[in-house]
């Protein structure tokens, strides 16, 4: 039970801090879940995040699996509710206020000011995941070269074409099956 409460506390806080989308809380989430509470290993966290990329809908529904790994079905439900409900409630009331502030120059100031903060958080998210998934000191250099290569190829293909990202992620899985065995 104390684990469930702890999960709810963590994910409700993350929910309210997710400025600019779920990716922004990725480094903080990983720090909480892996380093602080030791609920998951580095690798499990990276794998769960990856599963989220394979499912439709918002990527961050994969937080459900963190809840499941920690406390079974109750954990799953608790994390989903804690991660989505607070931000949705805040959005409901804040969007009413935002409508009321239509035309205020401060609205634009908030947007301009927060944009680079969000980019910094996204970069921290890349780094937090990449430390495990792209360059992992506990693996040999050939493995790391391949995982780094897969990441570079994926970023390049997505930057240059309009292919659906889910297909590229699946191709990454296939490359893993063939090359990383």
């Amino acid at each position, binding site marked *: 039970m104390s684990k469930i409460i702890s999960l709810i506390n963590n994910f409700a806080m993350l929910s309210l801090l997710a400025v600019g989308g779920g990716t922004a809380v990725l480094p903080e989430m990983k720090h909480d879940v892996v380093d602080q509470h030791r609920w998951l290993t580095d690798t499990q966290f990276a794998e769960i995040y990856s599963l989220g990329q394979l499912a439709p809908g918002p990527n961050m529904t994969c937080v459900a699996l963190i809840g499941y790994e920690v406390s079974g079905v109750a954990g799953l439900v608790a994390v989903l509710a804690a991660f989505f409900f607070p931000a949705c409630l805040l959005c409901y009331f804040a969007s009413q206020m*935002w409508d009321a502030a239509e035309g205020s120059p401060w609205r634009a100031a908030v947007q301009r000011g927060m*944009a680079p903060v969000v980019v910094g958080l996204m970069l921290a998210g890349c780094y937090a995941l990449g430390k495990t998934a792209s360059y992992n000191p506990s693996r040999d250099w050939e493995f790391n070269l391949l995982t780094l290569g897969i990441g570079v190829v994926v970023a390049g293909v997505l930057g240059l074409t309009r292919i659906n990202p889910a297909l590229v992620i699946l191709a990454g899985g296939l490359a893993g099956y063939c090359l990383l065995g």
Partner: protein
Amino acid sequence: MSKPEIRVSLARIFRVFAVIGVTSFGGGIVAYLRRALVEEEKWLDEDGFMAALEISQTLPGLNATNMSVIVGRKLRGPWGAVVATLGMILPGALIVTALGFAYAALQHNPKVASVLAGVAAAAVGLLVQVTIKIGWRHLLRPKDLAFVVAVFVLVGILHVSLLVTLLTLAPIAVWLNRPGEPKESA
């Protein structure tokens, strides 16, 4: 945003958002939302959509669920917001749960571990590409770059709590862009 003339049923709101939730593979939900809400259902016009998106991106929470809350609220008040959000989240949550059960059963299988290592490596590539696409303009402007680097170092490397980081840097970032200042970061 103009109010729709016809009262939309809650079941219809749920269905439209659930279809988006179940078909939007590979992220980029904004494109799916635009097609469904503006082009197909005509619940919003182009400007209304952009205005809703602007709010979604500024408030905490996922863009997809914030859009659901905002559009659901416009259409049918609180219940509209609830059914739109559930429609958006539930299909993906069920599918990711099914994947998770398979993962729990198979995670120690070495072949499955190789596939997941490939998927995880690719997911980092996707994340980097999205970050560059959204962020490159800010990396070129010294004032913005300072915030990008400060946030990255504080949260990513030093693990300063996100709450503390945001409470410290966000007011400074907004103040530096306060109305009346030269709009070099517009």
